[in-house]
């Protein structure tokens, strides 16, 4: 046997390169588009053509608005189907006949995708700063919220992708459902109505997507612990499955 390098991060540059192409190019395109829209809105406001209700954009409001709407989708773009596609299309046979453990390969992929998601607000901030000749709207709490959202949503997506390439769809539905239930529970509390027990129970079981509001107040105490423990548990479960569950499901799968 010839000399062999076992450097654990040897394939990371290729993974990073793949992520720069997808979803990196999409993130950059969205950042440029949002910057363009901000620039047009700012021009309208400055020229006095703006109506009573027209927006005068700010970088912080743009960041908050974009990430409140697009964060889950941005995360799904970065990590959706990551294991399932390799297994379903049979790429895993070439990849993991080499001396590389699947759990380690996908952990690297997960972490790099997380960095890519954290790079997205920087791209958006740069675009908005150019468009508005002002700040980037970036803040420590925005990064912290996005990082925690990635821990929660990204880990669940990784876990679901082990079973099906379309596992991301389940994550999307769960996030939608949780945010909807959280909104209903909030309304019930406001109106002093006791919510149905099943609704409270589902809210408790589903991942706490609703606690993560980019541009909102920073999470603290029990809510922070809830998000971190839930997200870390999902990640650990995914890695354990990748470590101990064989990737193949049949002779030629």
């Amino acid at each position: 046997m010839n000399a062999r390098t076992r450097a654990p991060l040897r394939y990371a540059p290729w993974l990073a390169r793949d992520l720069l192409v997808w979803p990196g190019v999409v993130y950059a395109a969205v950042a440029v588009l949002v910057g363009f829209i901000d620039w047009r809105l700012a021009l309208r406001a400055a020229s006095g053509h703006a109506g009573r209700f027209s927006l005068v954009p700010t970088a912080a409001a743009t960041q908050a608005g974009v990430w409140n709407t697009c964060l889950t989708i941005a995360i799904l773009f970065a990590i959706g189907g990551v294991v399932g596609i390799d297994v379903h299309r049979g790429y895993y046979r070439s990849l993991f006949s080499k001396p590389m453990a699947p759990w380690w390969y996908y952990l690297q992929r997960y972490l790099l995708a997380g960095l890519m998601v954290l790079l997205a607000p920087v791209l958006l901030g740069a675009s908005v700063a150019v468009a508005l000749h002002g700040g980037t709207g970036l803040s420590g709490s925005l990064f912290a919220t996005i990082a925690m959202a990635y821990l929660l949503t990204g880990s669940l997506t990784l876990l679901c992708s082990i079973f099906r390439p379309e596992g991301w769809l389940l994550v999307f539905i769960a996030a939608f459902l949780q945010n909807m239930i959280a909104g209903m529970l909030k309304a019930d509390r406001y109106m002093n109505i006791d919510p149905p027990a099943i609704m409270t129970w589902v809210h408790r079981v589903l991942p706490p997507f609703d606690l993560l509001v980019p541009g909102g107040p920073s999470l603290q105490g029990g809510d922070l612990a809830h998000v971190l423990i839930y997200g870390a548990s999902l990640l650990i479960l995914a890695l354990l499955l990748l470590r101990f569950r064989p990737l193949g499901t049949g002779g030629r799968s």
Partner: protein
Amino acid sequence: MIQFQSASKSYVSLFTRRRVDALSDFSMEMHRGEVVGIAGPNGAGKSTLISLLLGFLDPSGGRVLVDGRTPRAYVEHDGAGYLTELIALPPAWRVPATLQRLAVLAGVPATERTARVNAQLAQLGLEEHIRKTNKQLSKGNLQRVGLGQALIGDFDLVVLDEPTHGLDPLWTQRFRDIVAELRRPERLILIASHNLDELERLADRVAILNKGRLQNIVTRGAGLEAATPVLWRVVFDAPAPDVAAVLPGATPIEGRAGAWTVRATRSGLSAALARLLGDGAVLVECTPQESTLESAFRAAVR
């Protein structure tokens, strides 16, 4: 190097609970320095056996050891050169990048990587395709890229599942030369194939599987050729002798005077022919109609 100890693999349907035994009670040892063939009809369990060997599946019963370790532990540490039957590689990757990436995963040192990739491209006749992506390659060319990625790591364990699938005759022959060059005392090469002629030429031993069970292990050069009855065609000049009288079961070939098909061992046929020739018959042709392996295969899967 490899020990299959009563290895079994069953699949159970989640809903109907129907159980399919893909591999049953398979026991065999394979050693470094050998080329071992796995033959069997479709659904015989060849691909399941390979998946167990590489740790892509866990056995339902028995165990599989590679160098005393579980297959997954072996592969994750030492790696294996593996070509799948229907090679699947990401379609957007360019050919050299595919080999580069998989060389990185294989642990080929950075200083050797480019030279190794270029050597594979040259050896497999892929130099003219270096600007193409995997998606743009024909089936045969993609199979060659697959072979390249399997060989680039220079592993001690090489597993080739239907390696000549999609290759033209020229590259089928070239593949045989490449496998012959791969032989080394420390390396075990496993080839699963439908192509008995290919296995006959390349393998030292061939395990014949049918319906998930090991039927026979045919060893090349162990006197088996002489001991196994195979089908022959013998043709005599007129006046044709009565071949059936000396070789029971011989049948005349319709429409060709003096031509017979017979099933016999080499020694049995030699003795019968000697007797006929001694009686004045003139032999025009004597050709084997199937190989020893084919004969054993037919007997095993009947």
